[in-house]
């Protein structure tokens, strides 16, 4: 978790995830209505698949910020067992690479969102404009960049600490960094 100093970021991430997953739950309910309409009365909801496709993108992207804050990663943690400073330095490497990947992802998704906006792309059936979805997605992935930057900053402090620090990840030699872990 980020330190309390970064509570606003945590709150924002929780809010984004909550909106995304409540939207997904609502989508599941509407899916059931669509099935009922289709199977019982032969009347599916018009354009439902267009909205469903968009909602799925939104829900998935909404989960990224909170997962960074709660450090849901899978990593192999053998080398770090040798020495606490090596462990923290390697974690710094991992967090920095993750920052770079999220920066590239948000930049390139923004480029895609802009393309979609300029081309006036719409959904297939009910011709909804797609750009608001991709602008929102860009925002949600973009929020990950400052969050991960804060995590890197905290990790710098850990890597150069004067006193030995306890392992943040204590689930096992190969760690799932938060209690939910990899859902396999």
């Amino acid at each position, binding site marked *: 978790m980020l330190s309390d100093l970064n509570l606003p970021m945590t709150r924002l991430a929780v809010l984004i*995830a909550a909106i995304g997953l409540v939207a997904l739950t609502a989508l599941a309910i509407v899916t059931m209505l669509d*099935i009922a309409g289709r199977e019982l009365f032969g009347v599916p909801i018009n354009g439902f698949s267009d909205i469903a496709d968009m909602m*799925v993108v939104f829900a*998935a992207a909404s989960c990224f910020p909170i997962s960074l804050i709660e450090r849901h990663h899978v990593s192999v943690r053998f080398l770090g067992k040798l020495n606490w400073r090596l462990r923290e330095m*390697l974690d710094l490497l*991992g967090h920095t690479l993750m920052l770079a990947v999220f920066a590239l992802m948000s930049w*390139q998704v923004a480029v895609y969102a802009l393309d979609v906006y300029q081309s006036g792309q719409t959904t297939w059936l009910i011709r909804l404009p797609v750009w608001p979805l991709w602008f929102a997605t860009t925002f949600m992935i973009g929020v990950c960049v400052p969050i991960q930057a804060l995590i890197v900053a905290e990790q710098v402090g850990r890597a150069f600490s004067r006193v030995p620090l306890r392992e943040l990840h204590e*689930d096992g030699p190969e760690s799932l960094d938060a209690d939910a*872990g990899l859902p*396999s």
Partner: protein
Amino acid sequence: MTPIEIGLLGFLCLIIVIFLQVPIAIAMAVTGAAGYLVLTGNLKGMISLFGTETVNVLMNKDFAVIMFFLLMGGFAGAANLSADIYRFANAWMGHLRGGLAMATIIGCGGFGAICGSSIATTATMARIAMPEMERRGYALSLCTGTLAAGGTLGSLVPPSVIMVIYAVQVEQFIIDLFIGAILPSILSILLFLIAVRIQLYLHPGMAPPSPRTNLSERLATTRKAWGAIFVIVVVMGGIYSGVFTVNEGAAVGLVLTLAFALGRRLLTGETFWKTLREQAGSIALLYLILIGANIFGYFITLSHMPEATVAWIKSLGIPPISVILVLILMYIALGCVFDALSGMVLTLPFVAPLVSGLGYDLVWWGIVNVMLIEIGMITPPVGINVFVMHGLRKDIPLSTIFRGITPFLLANLVALGLVVAFPDLVTWLPKALK
């Protein structure tokens, strides 16, 4: 450099980066992007990979199933459906010697049919079954081994998140994997039950006999379990009969489990947000792994390494089954040092073309892969289900849990051997139902 050399070098770099403690998803993305740059010299193309692959994964409708199934599992736990299944199995089997352990295995299999995740199955069932087994004087190694191993059924019993990922990555129908997994799931459950009985035959003191439940109690617990049975029948029945698509079935399952949690007044605002928050982390983790795997897979495909590997192995004239056995040994070894699901995702770009190139069915290989992941989840030193169990009961030494899972590990190997020797165990049912 030849394609095989480039691909192998890329894979070697990936392993090194992973052992430098870099999260596996990020290691795949970074190595794949670097490999692409080496192959093409196109920096702009490399940067754009991060956009195209992110957009492709986010827009993939099949992956939505993962989100629905994860939330469904979360709400099923909140609705106590897992406890109902366990009590139901316990009422009918609890009086047998080792009956509680056997009920736990059936409970894990039943909850796996609602949940789709091994870790969630272990964690959920441990909270319900562990106190009961301890109260009846069961040996700790038997209790923890049963739960850690039984939990792996969450991945094998359909619906399964791993099967969805595999099916999308190798472009097979998700439903074929779900149907193909039915017989191997039943086989695994039976072998786990046999493993319990053999342990008790050798060490009768591990589980004292329990009193028989009377018929009215049995019927009462059966009636109480209707919710779980209803969800399983509607979701899987709807999917298999073709009334729903897999996506729709998963959505229906989510709504039903949510309705049960609400109807039973077990879903407070707090548990609702907790479930969403826990599953959000898992969803993002899987999506990030898939984005990383797509970038790495793009590089591997571009290197033409898979085709070159298949051609090379065919030129050696080795019998295909020997190649399969080597792959199985490789995955078992990989599962000893590595998260087994990540191992599957990052090796699929090489292995899937190889397996299909040798003439094997990719649905069959998918089930073999899931069984290998099950084995990886309980294999020392990094079996994740063992650590989940240990996380829940820190007072029980890891050595006790690993000792407890040994008979189940052997049962898993027997099940795997049978599925490899008789592929029809997987392929017959999907064909018969078409």
